[in-house]
């Protein structure tokens, strides 16, 4: 477990500040040796375009005419497009071998941040720089549910950029990792949510990614699967990769991550050692509840 004292945290802060004045050279020599940057997120903004809400008209306070009321009732849902900002100016640097937990309340922008970092969701402003290949595992990252698990393994592997022969060579180990046995020949619509999550995890990590992002995907698996995924995560980190983990479980973050980001309303509240961030997060919650 990494050190959780205040000194370590303040050092981290200095590392981040150093880039402004003295350049990246200063960042290369912190107290705890860190690897090279694998992911740089720079003032990232992501907003969703949402159709079909109700247009929020400016209320004048006067009772409008009958014509006007009828017209507005009819057109209230026409052209109702709203921009929903999900991530608002997040910046941080992730390094080789790091495992970073992301915490925050529902709707804080955690999943959107991961998607944007993985290049799956266009962002509106800022920049993301990353090394190598990103793999994102999310609860929503469904493959094609009408097809068999077998077919999904082939599709997923090909989409990751493996060749047909490479997918075939890894097929057995993928099925074994997902622990699906004969279910692999059934359509995914027949799978339980845990089974589908296991298959997704197995497919996404068939090619060991440089950056692995896990969005609550472990919570649906059973204990045996969680242990296997933990091994996989350690494998990624051992190969100088970086792991991101979004979870509502403080224990999962504590046991798998040494650093944590706390997001609230799309903004970064705190970035530091997991233990310290979790403590501050819990304190903020308990204060709010009291």
């Amino acid at each position, binding site marked *: 477990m990494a050190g959780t004292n205040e000194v370590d945290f303040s050092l981290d802060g200095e590392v981040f500040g150093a*880039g402004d004045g003295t350049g*990246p050279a200063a960042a290369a020599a912190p107290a705890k040796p860190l690897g090279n940057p694998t992911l740089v997120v720079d003032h990232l903004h992501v907003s969703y375009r949402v159709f079909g809400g109700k247009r929020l008209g400016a209320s004048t306070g006067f009772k409008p005419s009958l014509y006007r009321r009828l017209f507005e009732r009819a057109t209230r849902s026409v052209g109702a497009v709203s921009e929903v900002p999900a991530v608002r100016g997040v910046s941080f640097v992730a390094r080789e071998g790091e495992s970073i937990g992301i915490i925050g309340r529902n709707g804080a922008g955690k999943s959107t941040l991961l998607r944007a970092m993985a290049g799956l969701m266009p962002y509106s402003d800022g*920049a993301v720089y990353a090394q190598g290949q990103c793999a994102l595992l999310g609860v929503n990252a469904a493959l094609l549910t009408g097809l068999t698990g077998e*077919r999904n393994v082939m599709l997923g592997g*090909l989409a990751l950029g493996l060749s*047909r022969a490479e997918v075939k060579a890894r097929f057995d180990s993928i099925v074994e990792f997902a622990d699906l046995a004969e279910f692999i020949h059934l359509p995914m619509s027949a799978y339980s949510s845990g089974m589908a999550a296991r298959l997704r995890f197995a497919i996404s990590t068939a090619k060991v990614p440089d950056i692995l992002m896990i969005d609550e995907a472990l919570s649906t698996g059973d204990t045996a699967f969680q242990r296997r995924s933990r091994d996989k995560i350690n494998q990624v980190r051992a190969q100088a990769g970086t792991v991101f983990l979004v979870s509502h479980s403080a224990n999962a973050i504590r046991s798998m991550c040494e650093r944590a980001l706390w997001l609230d309303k799309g903004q970064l509240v*705190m970035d530091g050692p997991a233990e310290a961030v979790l403590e*501050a997060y819990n304190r*903020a919650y308990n204060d709010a509840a009291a």
Partner: protein
Amino acid sequence: MTVQPPPALSSAAAAALAAKYGLRRIGARPPLGAYTASLWRRRDFTWTLATSDAYGKNQGSYLGQVWGVLKPLLQFGVFFVVFGLLMPAGTRAGIGDFLSYLVIGTFLFEFMASGLNNSGRAIAAKIKLVRALEFPRAVLPISVTCTELIMMWPATLVMLAIVLVRGHYPTWRWLLLPCAIALIYLFVLGCGFFLARIVSATPDLGNLVPIATQLLRFVAGVFFSIETLAADFGWLGQAAILEPFALYLRLARSTLMAEVHASGADWAMGVGYALVVLVSGYIYFWLAEARYGRD
């Protein structure tokens, strides 16, 4: 709350740090060459996606894949009743063998129409895949049109059988039919690139695509001879003869039916339409690569 958000690097410093360690910018549009290369590497993925979709489309019914032949046959039956039996014979003027003329027109136009309709929704239909995996998005319009091509095969065999039964025996010109179908495919794919981008940016326009193909069905000469009718319409008639959909139907018919003629200029124009639309559509689609999957 006592915690402070950590200080961030300036944008210039972040970019310098990324450049120093060789990080690539995520979400930026790759250059056209690199994009095409990565698209080529995903050809197996594109094809697997297309075959899976083709198989899945007719699942979930008792007759399954038989519908691939039944649907165009029924469509053909409707047109035959309306335009072959109910309408006065004058609408069939200038057509030798109406039955063969109609079956080729119906089956090939159905392929073009469903290719256009489906490629408009190519991104939206696979939005979960887009949000889950990173791959060049041009895979999607290509695989959607490939799906239509795969599903057209059984219908093409039925079409050939009907044409044979009507007494059109194979000549060397039959060898040109695959060329005509290939040109049609490339043209539809090019249109598909345009539609996929336009509809993903403005979903409303997706509702207009079926209306547009419906209009084309009537003006492209699926069930009457556009060449015979065009004489009454001056330059508008000439335009209707030369527009791509009518032209491609004429090319396809000329390979199977002796009474339909297509000149070398017609074939050259067919190649021209396909290439121009394909290349411009591909570039148009690629220009918005960084924006797909936003909603």
